[in-house]
């Protein structure tokens, strides 16, 4: 409860800081629109040449893009402002030292205390595309499908947070290793169903760097109905990833000796 109150307070302060720069709001909204528009256009071009792509229909693709955009929006709103470029800002510039002195869990402060409220526009747009996809789908999703989609989206968000924390933890062992660009590039692969990719990449995106859980799996559950095994695997993956992130953070802190040491 205390952490939720802290999260709300951090969000409120970030929101007040953000609205002071209204031109930035215009830029962020425009970029979110054009970014999503480009992604949708790229897919619609494909569907001028084919009815399905790797077994996915146009409606399913729209649902997938909407889900991907929603989780990306949550990531850029709540996670990226804290963990982007962590080796530099967190470790080398000493921001982590400040967090360690504060009376709240350092993992929470380092990964969720700041936010970029303007990026929530991506979530809104994602929901819009999702509704579009559902609207043009051959059959509407059932209640079970919607519920399992919700659970899997939460699981995907937790996995996203855990992946970001694990990436940040690498800085405790290799402070000069900067993998943010790599992470954000690999993230782009989540915009397409894993069925599109070659088998080795598909395995990698399902079990090693689980981008499949971000959009492909929830979208499948929503439109093709839930599968109990997949649902269970998604929840287990989220719990496992979160536990691993917390363990890695603790191990990293034990090794950490301060920004200047």
């Amino acid at each position: 409860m205390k952490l939720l109150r802290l999260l709300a307070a951090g969000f409120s302060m970030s929101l007040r800081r953000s609205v002071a720069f209204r031109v930035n709001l215009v830029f962020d909204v425009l970029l979110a629109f054009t970014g999503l528009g480009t992604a949708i256009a790229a897919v619609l071009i494909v569907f001028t040449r084919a009815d399905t792509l790797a077994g996915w229909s146009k409606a399913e693709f729209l649902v997938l893009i909407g889900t991907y955009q929603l989780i990306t929006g949550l990531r850029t709103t709540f996670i990226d402002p804290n963990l982007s470029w962590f080796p530099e800002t967190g470790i080398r510039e000493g921001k982590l030292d400040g967090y360690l002195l504060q009376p709240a869990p350092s993992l929470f402060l380092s990964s969720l205390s700041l936010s970029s409220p303007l990026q929530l526009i991506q979530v809104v747009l994602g929901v819009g595309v999702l509704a579009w996809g559902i609207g043009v789908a051959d059959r509407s999703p059932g209640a079970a499908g919607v519920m399992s989609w919700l659970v899997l989206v939460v699981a995907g968000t937790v996995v996203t947070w855990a992946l970001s924390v694990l990436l940040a933890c690498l800085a405790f062992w290799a402070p000069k290793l900067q993998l943010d660009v790599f992470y954000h590039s690999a993230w782009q692969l989540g915009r397409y169903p894993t069925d599109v990719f070659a088998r080795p990449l598909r395995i990698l995106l399902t079990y090693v760097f689980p981008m499949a859980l971000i959009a492909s799996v929830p979208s499948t559950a929503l439109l093709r109905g839930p599968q109990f095994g997949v649902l269970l695997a998604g929840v287990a993956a989220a719990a496992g990833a979160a536990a691993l992130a917390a363990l890695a953070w603790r191990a990293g802190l034990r090794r950490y000796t301060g920004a200047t040491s």
Partner: protein
Amino acid sequence: MRTAVLLGFRLRQEVLEWSGAWWFLMTLVVQAVVAPLIGLFVWSAVYPDDPAIARYYVAVILVTLMTESFEQHTFSERIYNGTLSHELLRPQPVAVGVIGMNLAIRAWLTLLGAPIVLLTGIALQVGFDWWAVARSTPYLVLAAVLVFLWTFLLSLTAFWTDRVHAVVGFGSQLVFLFGGTAAPIGLLPDGLRRVAEVLPFYGMSGLPAEIAAGTRGDGSLGYQLVWVVVLVGVVMVLWRAGVRRYTAVGS
């Protein structure tokens, strides 16, 4: 001649400086190849029996690596932190430093990305007509100039706004959509294809890749040259206006 010598020195200096950041450069290579790789997988799924698709996208990956530009990071940040003043005080054009760094990064990306291109080509059993590859060289050079001018032009907006990354991001989306990465231009719907063939983005990526892949026999160097002239003109106008507006840190 003097400018060319200065550029040579700067290029050497930048190549050496970036040699220490090979790991970061590798992440930039990954960033550059992801979009064309996705295009390759998507269009190969649509046309599984067409070897031209794989050939085209392997060429796009190489063109992208050889023409990547990051002036929103290398140049615009100098406007934001005020170190552009140092460049303005040097007895040489500011462009020497910008172009030197641009060429050094491209050289490293090409070198580090070559194994990825090679592996992709071997894995997909892509065969090139080397005469077509040689013929694509002038188109590739002009594509490199166009991408630099486009990115530099958008980076100049840092004189007016602190959202240069959003502006350049928008520019990259246009290149992705109309340049031939999202889809080969020939596969775009008619209306969109006609627009794409007129805009400069096709000349930045799709045109040299198509010629190298042999899916297009010849192209119009004139089309690329016209856009080079237009972009050089706009860059010069924006540069003059920007420098007049620029106020060094501390003044």
